[in-house]
């Protein structure tokens, strides 16, 4: 068994045991939030870290997932499972259509286009009031049921979201260690050269974009069923930027960066709520923002490639992002 599989299984075990050890619903809800973000960042890491394409618009897919499932399940009474899948299909379709012209753009133009896409979708959430409820928000989203089992409390929802996260991490990992993954990385390495070995760059960019959109969409759908109320404000450009922060602080060069980045982002802001008042009594939220900003800057100055890269460096396990180690191959060299 590959070493990387071992890590994944250990991680899965940790996830499984956590609620048995810790009983705080608040902590679980934090982990659930981390789960949503990890799912989004998982797709985004594939897009950014592996294919080297930036997106400032993934909050849009998160929102599309949330609103689709909300609309279908609450307004039309669909089963949430079906409506989540419908959301994913719609997101995939939109990603495909939008991706075709968008990925003709490069670098900053791509950033701009994805930002613009996010703004347009946000505006739709805001303006199509008959479906979305506009700025007033959409409430009464039902919770998810599996037979008689309702994912209504935090512990149950926790298992649901983290199962999905794990599956998607596994999927991503499989992608990375395959011809598709190499094709994606080759795009970041040199578009000219990947073209020259016969890689249809556009097609792979689109595939990974669609994949990341599906991840974001499912995360958004689950989020909607979890909080049961959504509002366009929760899907604005700032959220896309938060996703970006998570991916970069986690480290875009590893799929684990997605989980680590989201954890750091959520835990840091929660922790600051606890710690800042101890240092400055009577301090308001502004201090948390200041500290958050300072920590973010300091962290990135000392760990410019994110936490996973820094971790690998510390433990000396840094091998390249490659899959194949000479040891595992019984010494291929000469």
């Amino acid at each position, binding site marked *: 068994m590959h070493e990387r599989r071992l890590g994944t299984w250990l991680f899965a075990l940790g996830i499984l045991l956590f609620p048995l050890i810790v009983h705080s619903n608040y902590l679980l809800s934090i982990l659930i939030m981390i789960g949503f973000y990890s799912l989004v960042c998982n797709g985004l890491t594939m897009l950014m870290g592996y294919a080297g394409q930036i997106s400032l618009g993934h909050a849009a897919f998160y929102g599309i997932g949330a609103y689709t499932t909300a609309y279908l399940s609450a307004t039309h009474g669909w089963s949430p499972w079906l409506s989540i899948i419908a959301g994913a299909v719609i997101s995939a379709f939109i990603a495909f259509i939008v991706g075709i012209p968008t990925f003709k753009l490069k670098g900053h133009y791509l950033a701009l286009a994805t930002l613009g896409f996010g703004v347009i979708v946000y505006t739709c959430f805001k303006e199509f009031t008959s479906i979305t409820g506009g700025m007033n928000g959409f409430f009464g989203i039902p919770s998810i049921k599996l037979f008689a089992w309702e994912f209504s409390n935090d512990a149950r929802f926790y298992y649901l979201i983290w199962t999905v996260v794990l599956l998607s991490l596994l999927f991503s990992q499989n992608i990375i260690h395959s011809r598709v993954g*190499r094709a994606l990385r080759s795009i970041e*390495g*040199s578009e000219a050269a*990947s073209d*020259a070995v*016969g890689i*249809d760059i556009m097609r792979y960019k689109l595939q990974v974009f669609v994949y990341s959109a599906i991840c974001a969409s499912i995360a958004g759908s689950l989020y909607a069923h979890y909080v049961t109320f959504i509002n366009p404000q929760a899907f604005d450009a700032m959220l896309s930027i938060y996703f970006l922060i998570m991916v970069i602080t986690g480290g875009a060069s590893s799929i684990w960066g997605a989980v680590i980045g989201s954890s750091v982002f959520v835990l840091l802001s929660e922790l600051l709520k606890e710690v800042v008042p101890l240092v400055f009594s009577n301090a308001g939220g502004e201090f948390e923002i200041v500290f958050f900003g300072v920590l973010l800057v300091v962290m990135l100055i000392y760990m410019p490639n994110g936490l996973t890269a820094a971790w690998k460096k510390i433990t000396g396990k840094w091998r390249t992002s490659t899959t194949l180690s000479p040891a595992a191959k019984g010494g291929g*060299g000469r």
Partner: protein
Amino acid sequence: MKRNGQVLLTVEHITKQFGGVVAVNDVSFDVNKGEILAVIGPNGAGKTTLFNIVTGILAPSSGTVRFNGTDITGKKPYQIAQLGMTRTFQNLEVFTNMSVIENVMTGAHRNMKTSFLQAGLRVPSVKKEEKAVEEKAMRCLEKVGIAHLAYERAETLPYGNQRLLEIARAIAAEPALILLDEPMAGLNDEESRWLVEVILQLRKEGLTFVFVEHDMETVMAISDHIVVLDNGVKIGEGTPEEIYRNKAVVAAYLGEEETVC
């Protein structure tokens, strides 16, 4: 002038303009199967531009390129590569974010089948294919002589080895034709001697080469046929002997009293 053999690549009346600059001007020639053809000429003659047109990176202003009987003018680079034509680059384009062997495995992309979904679900056929490709990549590395570096990060290789890596990547695609842009540049004599051997060996295995090179010793030593460009125009074509006797070529490129070898 008449060569025997089966034509693999035909370049017909290719012209390329960049604004006012005519980089390639009405150039035509054929490449036969199993041949080593050199394109030479002064700096800025249009050699790299010609390569870029043949491999689809640039669209010609006019003219056609035919490969293996199909018209590939205006096709995308990856489509052309999928038809069996790969290349190396004058300014090196290795995938610096991968290991050496992954670079080569990426080269084999066109002969693999795994789709996005299959890869994600890691169906059994994927595993099998991966294994086969890895072995193939290793063989390619052995051919160019850098198999011992297989698990290094590509960007840490010295310049010369990066050139060899590009060639290994190009042959991993099992192409019919390989284009090499100044393969010897920056190599020391020993390394370029090794590279010559590699090329000749591969030719024996049935590959066809077109290459650009300023190192006249190499050009004269290994090419079957030479095309000379100057200022975008083809000013001469023929066997090394013919080229060496061609006054225009000598004046434009080789220099009067230069003695080769």
